[in-house]
């Protein structure tokens, strides 16, 4: 029960050869491969630098499950993925190669639609229905929240369509930025209004 007070911590770690960042990232990369092969890598993630800032991309074995802007807080997003999807989550760029390539092509103006397996497990059924409808709004076009509500057969659910867009776990790839207010104003965006403007301008060019 009574424990002798410790002498103030010895810096044994500091006196030993240091563990370098490069050594750790090599080990992490190998672990990600082994974990994937062993079927225990539930969520793989990476970040990607884009004109809209750093994006966090995360994928399950079923597909892309989350795209997050920096202002959403990448650390919080990873914590939410760990609690809502699985704590077996590792930085593992390999699973996100295709997503990263397509997003790069989109920002370079060379891609108008995404061709990626998507995992909508973070969405409720209604929101999923709304989000699945959005790729139907073509590149360079927009639709109002009311139009989308009517299109999914719930004309009075304009506000719920707004919420579905505001909580879209796959912004950019599922183009909620193409949904705007009936008066033509862009409206809100989870990447911030400036990002919505950036994407609409990119697609209008």
């Amino acid at each position, binding site marked *: 029960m009574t*424990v*002798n007070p*410790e*002498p*103030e*911590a*010895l*810096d*044994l*770690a*500091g*006196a*030993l*050869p*240091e*563990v*370098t960042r490069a*050594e*750790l990232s090599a*080990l*992490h990369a*190998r*672990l990600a491969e*082994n*974990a994937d092969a*062993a079927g*225990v*890598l539930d969520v793989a993630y990476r970040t990607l630098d884009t004109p809209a800032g750093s994006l966090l991309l995360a994928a399950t074995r079923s597909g892309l499950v989350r795209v997050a802007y920096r202002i959403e807080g990448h650390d919080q997003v990873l914590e939410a993925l760990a609690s809502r999807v*699985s*704590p*077996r989550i*590792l930085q593992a760029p390999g699973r996100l190669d295709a997503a990263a390539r397509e997003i790069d092509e989109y920002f370079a103006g060379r891609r108008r639609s995404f061709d990626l397996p998507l995992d909508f497990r973070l969405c409720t059924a209604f929101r999923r229905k709304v989000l699945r409808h959005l790729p139907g709004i073509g590149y360079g076009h927009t639709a109002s929240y009311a139009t989308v509500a009517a299109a999914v057969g719930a004309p009075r659910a304009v506000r719920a369509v707004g919420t579905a867009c505001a909580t879209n776990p796959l912004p950019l790839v599922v183009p909620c930025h193409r949904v705007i207010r009936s008066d033509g104003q862009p409206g809100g965006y989870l990447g911030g209004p400036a990002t919505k403007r950036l994407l609409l301008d990119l697609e209008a060019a």
Partner: protein
Amino acid sequence: MAEHGATVLRVCRAILGPADADDAWSETFLAALKAYPRLGGAANVEAWLVTIAHRKALDVTRAAARRAVPAADLPEQAAARGAGGGGGADPDLADALAALPRRQREAVAYHYLAGLPYADVAAVTGGSTEAARRAAADGIARLRKTYAGAALPDGETA
């Protein structure tokens, strides 16, 4: 994961030397990923990882002993250890640590590198808390004799 990776690697290196540490580290985290859902939210992750690392290190040591021509192992390990030094750190301390008896090396690594209290060290290695404390104290005393370099802790005689 990121916050524990460096600590666990230091522990593996201290117990096994750099040549086998990478394998033990990889095995530890792979086993941790497999077992993770069974770990309660409030559990002590560091102690849990050290427990796994301890078992993996024993596996590695046993496997090495089975296939070993012991004389052939030593120069290779020493060379690898020497090459592993960096950033002005003194590889002599790693050698001094490697020369400790296993129980002392484990107690020193788990307490001073992983930061486990002696009760947790004892839970990992077996034996009493008092024995773990003694093994760490003896280990530090011996390190101080064999290694003249960095500041080691003051005497911890109970």
